């Protein structure tokens, strides 16, 4: 038996069972424990997909950080009547029926998805105004010894361009404007092959049998015969990284202020805040 589908069914089954147990249990401490196992199972799914960095960060941040926070919250507020609070059957019935309907909508949305071109337009040539070649070859992922995603993600957060490439509008290269009638494909087979080779290697897999992927009308350098790649820029993830860093700082300060230790007299003062006093008696 293949190991990957078997591992998927085991890990996905455990994760789903733990998630269902989180919902069903009425004990808050047990719900926190089941959530811990659910998060660990989700991390296993990430590792199975090949997203090593996301799986590791999930274990570090979610299981090692957020779950510790939740357990702290449970332990600080878990007194007699609050450990096990039950909801009425009517609420359960309404919530369960609504959730099942929503789950059906979600499942149907990705099962009935028919992506593709309109068959009525089959005679028109399809120009793939595609991003240029990607950095990761999908054929190598299945046989890679280490995940190539981690390096690319790390480079992206550090400022190296790793996103889909697009042409810089301020560059000196004059891109061929889109005309009303579609341009015929490149006549010279060598130029055409060069243009197709420079296309996104992933998009070549989207071509269905019997179809031909026409190269986009990009400018071809006459000297080398390859498409002109001057002015190609790639996006990076440096700005989201910085924004998230500042956001974490704000959250840190805010949470520390909100949860600051107050004088123990506060609770006593609240309990005797003069609710039963004589209203005619003036307050100091």
């Amino acid at each position: 038996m293949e190991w990957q589908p078997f591992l998927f069914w085991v890990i996905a089954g455990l994760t789903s069972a733990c998630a269902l147990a989180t919902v069903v249990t009425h004990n808050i401490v047990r719900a926190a424990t089941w959530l811990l196992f659910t998060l660990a199972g989700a991390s296993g799914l990430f590792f199975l997909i090949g997203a090593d960095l996301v799986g590791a960060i999930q274990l570090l941040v979610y299981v090692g950080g957020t779950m510790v926070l939740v357990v702290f919250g449970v332990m600080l507020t878990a007194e007699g009547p609050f450990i096990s609070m039950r909801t009425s059957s009517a609420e359960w019935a309404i919530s369960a029926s609504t959730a099942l309907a929503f789950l059906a909508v979600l499942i149907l949305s990705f099962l009935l998805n028919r992506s593709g071109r309109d068959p009525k337009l089959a005679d028109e040539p399809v120009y793939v105004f595609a991003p240029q070649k990607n950095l990761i070859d999908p054929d190598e992922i299945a046989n890679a010894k280490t995940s190539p995603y981690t390096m690319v993600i790390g480079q992206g957060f550090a400022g190296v361009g790793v996103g889909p490439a697009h042409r810089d509008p301020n560059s000196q290269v004059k891109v061929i404007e889109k005309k009303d009638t579609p341009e015929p494909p490149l006549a010279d087979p060598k130029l055409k092959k060069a243009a197709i080779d420079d296309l996104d290697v992933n998009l070549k897999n989207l071509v269905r049998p019997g179809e031909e992927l026409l190269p986009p009308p990009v400018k071809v350098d006459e000297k080398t015969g390859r498409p002109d790649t001057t002015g190609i820029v790639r996006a990076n993830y440096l700005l989201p990284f910085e924004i998230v860093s500042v956001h974490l700082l704000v959250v840190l300060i805010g949470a520390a202020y909100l949860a600051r230790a107050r004088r123990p007299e506060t609770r006593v003062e609240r309990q005797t805040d003069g609710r039963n006093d004589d209203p005619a008696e003036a307050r100091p």
Partner: protein
Amino acid sequence: MTEVGLNHYLFVGALLFVCGLVCMATKRNAIGVLIGVELVLNGANINFVAFSRFNPVFEIEGMTMALLVIVMAAGEAAVALAIVLNFYNNHLTVDVDQAEELKG
């Protein structure tokens, strides 16, 4: 069954999402509601990473989004727990049915 594809991971993500939704709707403990929020975010993360892996147009965009969601969720859990602890200190209860006055 022999080939595990995108739809399988999407189903797991959807299931986790709906479980979190029911948690948020039915738990009377405020921390139970937070547990539901974490489940919802994890379901969305599984969707992001699955699309990033199986859709040939994406490369790492989904995984980057999942990383940012994990970081944001940790921050939000911290602030939400601070609010719940404040509420508990002031009202001596974590029952969300008692939180009718929007007072901390």
